[in-house]
């Protein structure tokens, strides 16, 4: 029987080239970082000065006792969204990337509105209610 030729080297070479191109494209795309605002929970409420959003529309809010970061995004002059960065599959911490939120454990992906893009998670991220009082953005955490 004729021996089959296996192009292992060609396959590996092509794969490496593709991976290299992908890495370069990815690095070029995501060089930004989101600033962390540290605060605390008082009577189930997290307060963030509106001035935090004067120059940038996104903040990662970190408050002891919550256990997870919160992604807060300014949608308009008085409109904000706040998502708890806890995977709805098995509670893993989530990573905020460009246009999406990733779970490093089982691979779930969410969009910035908290909707599931890729499983295994099947329910959207928990949203925190937002309101504005006295030049502060208040998030209700319960």
């Amino acid at each position, binding site marked *: 029987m004729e021996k089959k030729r296996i192009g292992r080297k060609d396959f590996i070479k092509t794969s490496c080239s593709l991976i290299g191109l*992908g890495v370069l494209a*990815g690095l070029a795309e995501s060089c930004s*970082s989101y600033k962390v605002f540290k605060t605390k929970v008082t009577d189930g409420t997290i307060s963030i000065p509106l001035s935090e959003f004067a120059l940038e529309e996104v903040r990662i809010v970190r408050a002891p006792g919550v256990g997870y970061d919160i992604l807060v995004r300014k949608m308009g002059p008085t409109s904000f969204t706040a998502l708890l960065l806890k*995977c709805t599959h098995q509670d893993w911490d989530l990573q905020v990337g460009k246009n999406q939120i990733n779970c*490093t454990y089982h*691979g779930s992906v969410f969009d910035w509105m908290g909707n599931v893009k890729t*499983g295994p*998670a*099947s329910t959207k991220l928990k949203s925190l209610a937002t309101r504005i009082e006295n030049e502060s953005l208040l998030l209700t955490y319960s």
Partner: protein
Amino acid sequence: MSLNKKGRFLLILLLMIASNSFAQILTHEDSISAGLNVKGNRATAISGYGEAYYEQDFRNKLATARLRRTILFIGHRFNNHITFFSEMEMEDAVVSGGSKGEISMEQCFVKFDLVPGMYINAGLFTPRMGVMNENHLPNTFYGNERPVLETMVIPSTWRELGVSLYGTFPQIPGLNYSIGIFNGLQASGFTLDNGIAGGRQEGFKASARNKAIVGSLLYYAGPFRFQASGYAGGSNGADDKISSYAGLSTGFMGTPVYVGDVNVQYRNKGWFGKAQITQISIPDADRINAAFANNCPGRISGALGEIGYDFLNKKYNGEKQLHAFGRYEFINMNGKMPETGIENPYFTQQHFFAGLSYLPVRGVVIKADYQYIINGSFNQSLIINPPPYQLPFYQNRSFFKLGMAYSF
């Protein structure tokens, strides 16, 4: 069947007790935290996954039906920082006297959250090595079986006892790391056909004098996910005297094994792509063969390329999905055979896959896939006692699988 008054009373009493017992247990389809209000911050959750399929072997004109695996997940959140996870796995439905099914703990560990983005896992768990080791839920990969690369080369799910630190680099969003120490492998279980799979200890009275360091970098960049993982560990934990007789080094990195894996995934607008390369190096394979006569290879390697598209992505945005996919895999189990081993070209294989996955909801998938295998010839010198009648040997085979899987 009718119940008398006493019977009805006992039935109602049992139902009341049962409902009261389950009031503390969540069967919500997601998340341990679904019930943080159950008892302060504490909550218990039950979930699981499973997969079954029908397989048609066209070459041998055979067919098989398997309940491949069922997994019961039980988790408990003690507070906002400490959580217990466990997965009990049953393979092939029945475990009894003559059957070959298997029950094992796939994972059993406690997660300690240190600060947001940083945590420690301790116990029996799957380190970040390859893709399937962590992301093996059946509704997240194509095909009824896990990729051949992550079965024959990386023996997923590859779990060992250990401690691992996971975290992120705050200065570089999307870049994650993990570094952990585990018990090592057992060289006596290495073989040409199963690679290092037989050397896993999986928490069963594991020899831990030999240890392993496992590290990874994981980077999310837009629709890309890049991962590089490395493993360096000893595969002999026997005492000095026995090791000396066997001619093997022992201790922390005694009789070392090295594993390296690089993979990239792309996911965007219904498209999915994946490329992966893995290599295992066993520098002391010659001495392992001299000690155990197990035909251990010195090098094992594999590569994979996969592409898929979800035709329902625009209409349902992932709520319902219909994927078509194709995958190519190259596996070489005897990349470098030592003088004490016997090469078997049969285990140099190419696998071609094409198939469909339909998810009527995110947690349920119906899969159909066709697999075509090209393998090298069989080394006749491996037949020690030639049978009077030898079955024909084929260098290509094909299979069709139709199955269902769930994860909740």
